[in-house]
């Protein structure tokens, strides 16, 4: 088989020096393994060194202590937390979270791998040498001179030690060490912005442990901080000119863009966060001009540490509604600078566009990453928003506006932010890098299928991208908002997404859905189920939690798998649908998935199936009207009328869509799904509540 392959655009894995997903499938294994990388970074088991986190009790340090301890403890790597004697205990505060995630025994084991040492900030404690530090993750205050002195101290004591800074703002070239900038909340967010010349063993180790390192350019403030501080600055500037209260601006930013930038500052801790945002913007304004100039209130609050939201006893009393003209002005005030900042980063080629996009979504809570937002606006509209912004803030036009960075929106790097495809002339691999399914993913998936079709590829593997999407959680429920008021909108959404899913069934001779990671739920599982074969890694949780929202599965979850399963297994499918509970993949073989195994086994199995060399038989698929759907049994009593209504609607949909031929089932299930979304049960449920909280402000 040919060893070369071609792709729509560069895979993000390649930026880490890890090859492509197609290569992983073809090789039947992931490109690197954790054990070897631990040996490489910390030395062999008989001479295992330690990881030191300095500033270990701070917000970043304590979070990373938990994250690394839980992942490195099985390999016998001690995590040494270093901090000043008077630093309040940040690590102890993380313990309840550790127990909640891993259980008391594992939590105690993980904590057993942690050592805490105190020092005066200048002289390292003698006991540290006994732990043979090999990797220092520095999380001390953002003061350049202190950081440099800190590295010099460590290098003098432990020559050859690898050092990475968690800095959010200083370039690597100023620090003299590499950067691994993590995103909030630090104990659970897996993203690290990495600055280094070439992908290192440390970066690959992070990836192999399930973290999400992304290579970014070496600039004053990295992508996340440009976006996060940028949206906060835009919000503060809007406040400055209109008096709109911070809390209300936050609500409008969330409505139109996704983040709550000012609430986030308070949640992180206003004192530290205000300073970091000011520091980031201050340095950026020195580099790029007034576009990033901190406002007077931010400058004041970096000194005072005052929160942006009022205290509880002063919860907002007078509302602040925007007229439609105000809202247009508001959107210009927020989108304008963000587009300009994004164009600047694209001009500087700070990262793979998918990285820039994902950082916005995963770390800064943008509903759509900035490149995706710009793409949906179109270059002309995006530029006109910036022009309108420059009328509001004339000084921002003076520098750092690279309108030409938006010239190439039609190129694959822009067009395939969430979905990539590659093929070797025979087998195609389509990867999804967004954890939830939305309109953008749908459109990109269609383009990927078209691209493979144009290359006459008739076998395809569909999977997560092994990088940005560490799980597949289902549909992005914000896409349902228009359907809460409009049955036609709901039906159209369901039919559109289902039609895409059906292409996996109809456009290829063989299609294989590969499910890795922690879980695959809802719409993503429905999508995968449309493949002729489904392969999953052991332990992966599979489920259709729609009933708990409640919504009715709209990508054929109510009938498709019944057509592929034996009648005897229908009760299991029905229970899955009506309980909303997840099931371990290995318990679903034969009725939901076709094979399970370790990661490497799953990769190999999928490739073998796609190559036609596997002995696994394709399950029969009944396109006719199904008969004999059983009555549900063994379900726990519904907790509340919402779940009860959801169960009834899903059961009705299953009966109607299973009872119809395949050709009719698509529109039947779409109709059921759409009609339920307009009911009181749905509006009172999670989707309706989210809608009211987010959009009806």
């Amino acid at each position, binding site marked *: 088989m040919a060893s070369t392959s071609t792709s729509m655009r560069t895979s993000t894995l390649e930026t880490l020096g890890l090859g492509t997903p197609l290569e992983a499938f073809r090789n039947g294994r992931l490109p690197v393994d954790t054990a070897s990388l631990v040996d490489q970074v910390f030395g062999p088991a008989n001479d295992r060194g330690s990881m030191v986190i300095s500033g270990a009790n701070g917000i970043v340090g304590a979070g990373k202590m938990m994250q690394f301890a839980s992942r490195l403890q099985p390999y016998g790597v001690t995590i040494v937390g270093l901090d000043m004697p008077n630093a309040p205990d940040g690590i102890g505060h993380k313990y309840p979270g550790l127990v909640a995630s891993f259980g008391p025994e594992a939590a105690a084991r993980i904590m057993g791998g942690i050592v805490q040492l105190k020092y005066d900030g200048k002289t390292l404690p003698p006991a540290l040498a006994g732990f043979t530090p090999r990797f220092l993750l520095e999380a001390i205050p953002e003061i350049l001179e202190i950081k440099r002195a800190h590295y010099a101290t460590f290098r003098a004591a432990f020559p050859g030690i690898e050092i990475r800074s968690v800095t959010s703002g200083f370039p690597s070239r100023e620090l003299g060490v590499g950067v691994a900038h993590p995103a909030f909340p630090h104990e659970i967010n897996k993203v690290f912005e990495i600055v280094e010349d070439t992908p290192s063993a440390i970066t690959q180790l992070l990836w192999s442990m399930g973290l999400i390192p992304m290579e970014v350019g070496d600039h004053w403030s990295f992508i996340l901080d440009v976006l996060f501080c940028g949206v906060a600055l835009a919000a503060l500037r809007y406040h*400055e000119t*209109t008096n*709109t209260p911070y809390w209300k601006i936050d609500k409008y930013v969330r409505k139109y863009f996704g983040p709550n930038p000012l609430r986030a500052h308070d949640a992180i801790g206003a004192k530290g966060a205000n300073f970091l945002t000011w520091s980031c913007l201050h340095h950026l304004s020195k580099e790029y001009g007034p576009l990033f100039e901190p406002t007077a*209130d931010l400058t004041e609050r970096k000194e005072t540490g005052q929160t942006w939201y009022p205290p509880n006893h002063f919860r907002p009393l007078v509302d*602040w*509604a925007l007229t439609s003209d105000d809202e247009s002005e508001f959107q210009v005030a927020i989108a304008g600078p963000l587009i300009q900042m994004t164009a600047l980063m694209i001009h500087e080629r700070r990262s793979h566009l998918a990285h820039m996009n994902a950082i916005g979504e995963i770390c800064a809570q943008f509903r759509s990453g900035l490149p995706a937002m710009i793409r949906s606006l179109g270059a002309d509209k995006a530029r006109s928003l910036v022009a309108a912004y420059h009328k509001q803030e004339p000084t921002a036009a003076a520098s750092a506006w690279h309108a030409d960075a938006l010239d190439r929106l039609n190129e694959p790097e822009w067009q395939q932010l969430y979905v990539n495809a590659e093929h070797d002339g025979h087998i195609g691999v389509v990867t999804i890098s967004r954890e939830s399914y939305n309109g953008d993913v749908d459109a990109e998936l269609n383009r990927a299928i078209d691209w493979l079709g144009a290359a006459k590829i008739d076998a395809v593997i569909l999977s997560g991208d092994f990088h940005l999407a560490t799980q597949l959680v289902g549909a992005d429920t914000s896409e349902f908002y228009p359907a809460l008021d409009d049955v036609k909108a709901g039906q159209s959404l369901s039919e559109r997404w289902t039609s895409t899913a059906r292409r996996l069934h109809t456009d290829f001779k063989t299609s294989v859905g590969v499910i890795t990671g922690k879980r695959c739920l809802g719409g993503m599982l429905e999508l995968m189920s449309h493949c002729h074969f489904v392969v999953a890694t052991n332990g992966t949780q599979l489920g259709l939690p729609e009933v708990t929202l409640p919504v009715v599965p709209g990508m054929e979850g109510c009938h498709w798998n019944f057509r592929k399963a034996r009648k005897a297994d229908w009760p299991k499918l029905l229970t899955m649908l009506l309980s909303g509970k997840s099931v371990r993949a290995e318990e679903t073989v034969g009725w939901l998935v076709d094979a399970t195994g370790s990661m490497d086994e799953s990769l190999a199995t999928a490739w073998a199936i796609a190559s036609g060399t596997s002995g696994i038989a394709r399950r029969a698929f009944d396109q006719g009207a199904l008969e004999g759907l059983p009555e549900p049994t063994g379900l726990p009593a519904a907790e509340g009328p919402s779940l009860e209504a959801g169960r009834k609607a899903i059961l009705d949909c299953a009966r109607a869509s299973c009872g119809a031929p395949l050709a009719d089932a698509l529109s039947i299930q779409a109709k059921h799904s759409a009609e339920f979304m307009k009911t009181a049960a749905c509006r009172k449920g999670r989707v309706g509540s989210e809608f009211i909280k987010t959009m009806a402000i």
Partner: protein
Amino acid sequence: MSFKDSLYPRARIPYGTWGTSFFPAWQTSALAEVNIGQFAAESMNRILGLRRVPTAALDYLILGSTIPWHWKFWNAPMLAATFGRRIPGYHLEQACATGLQATLAAAAQVEGHGGDVVGVLTFDRTSDSPVGVFPERRAYERTFALNDVWENFGFDPATGKAMIATAGAAARKHKLDRREVDEVVFYRYQQYFEAKQSGFLDRVCVPLDILNLQGKLMGRIDQDTGVRQITMEALGGMRELDTCVTGGGQTHAADGMATLLVTTQERAAELSPRPEIDIRLVARTETRANPGLMPEAPSLAVQKLFAQTGFTMKDIAVAKCHNPFAVNDVIFSKLLNHDWKEVNRTGCSLVWGHPQGPTLTRSLIEGLEEAVDLGGGLVLLFGCAAGDVGIAAIFEVGDRARAGKTDRRTQ
């Protein structure tokens, strides 16, 4: 007009940067249930936002209110903090003269370079007013519990009389005719509803939405609730509570706020949507009537002011007063020999109520707006206050280009 002095030559009120809430009658709106100080401050922020004045422009804040409110101790700095500004300031009060006194104090602040843009924020909540408990060992009761609004209305410790009794006494002294008093009331309501109908009130009153603790709408303050059309017949049928005083001929308790700015001439031009309009304070005075004759105090104050300045009612383009009793206006008409129909042409506190702190602020804002409509001129503002006090002031609404040349003190 011969008087050319300006009391505070440096101070100006920037046109169109002001605003007031509606004044719902007590216990009829969500304002009955909130911290009125917080409401006032957030409303000021909202009003300034609507007027395109960033609160960052403020460098001082003067509060005026008369009824204790939650956390009053923390005063103007605290209320400024509710809209994100850490500026200094203080609180003052003088019963129903508070709104004018706060404006005068702001002008003095600007004049003395104590601030270039001084916010005046006046407010009161009469609904469910607090009860103060005052240990008093020398009293037979040992401890007084005083309902701040009603028990003060009902008892002037200096005279031992209720407010309403001063109206009756003044009506008797000036031999007022009940029918004329009723005609004033009827006309005042007509003036108010005509102003409302014309859209005039929409330029000064800002609708405000009140949120509950969960952030849901608790109520909308978009009417002077409690104000209803009235007929001569109904007025005539009302029982007299004292001489010439009926339920219709006196104001009612209300809740609300009003705000304006006082600044320098240069900053006024920057902040105002109509920089050509120049509003300055010309003169002020206060006086005190004999005990128990509060309704004649405003007239005495105006007479005193005219004596000081040489103005007469013929020089006045707009006259606005705080008239808690209709008898005030009839006495004014007699003492100043001026048709009461020519006063309060856009409404008055007799009709829209009496939250004390912001009452004269709203009257002033309405008066200045009316003067602008008339192409400028002098605005006379006057009213009574607890303790038989009368207060009066004259403002000039003029042309900015001309203002510098006519101000003797700046020459």
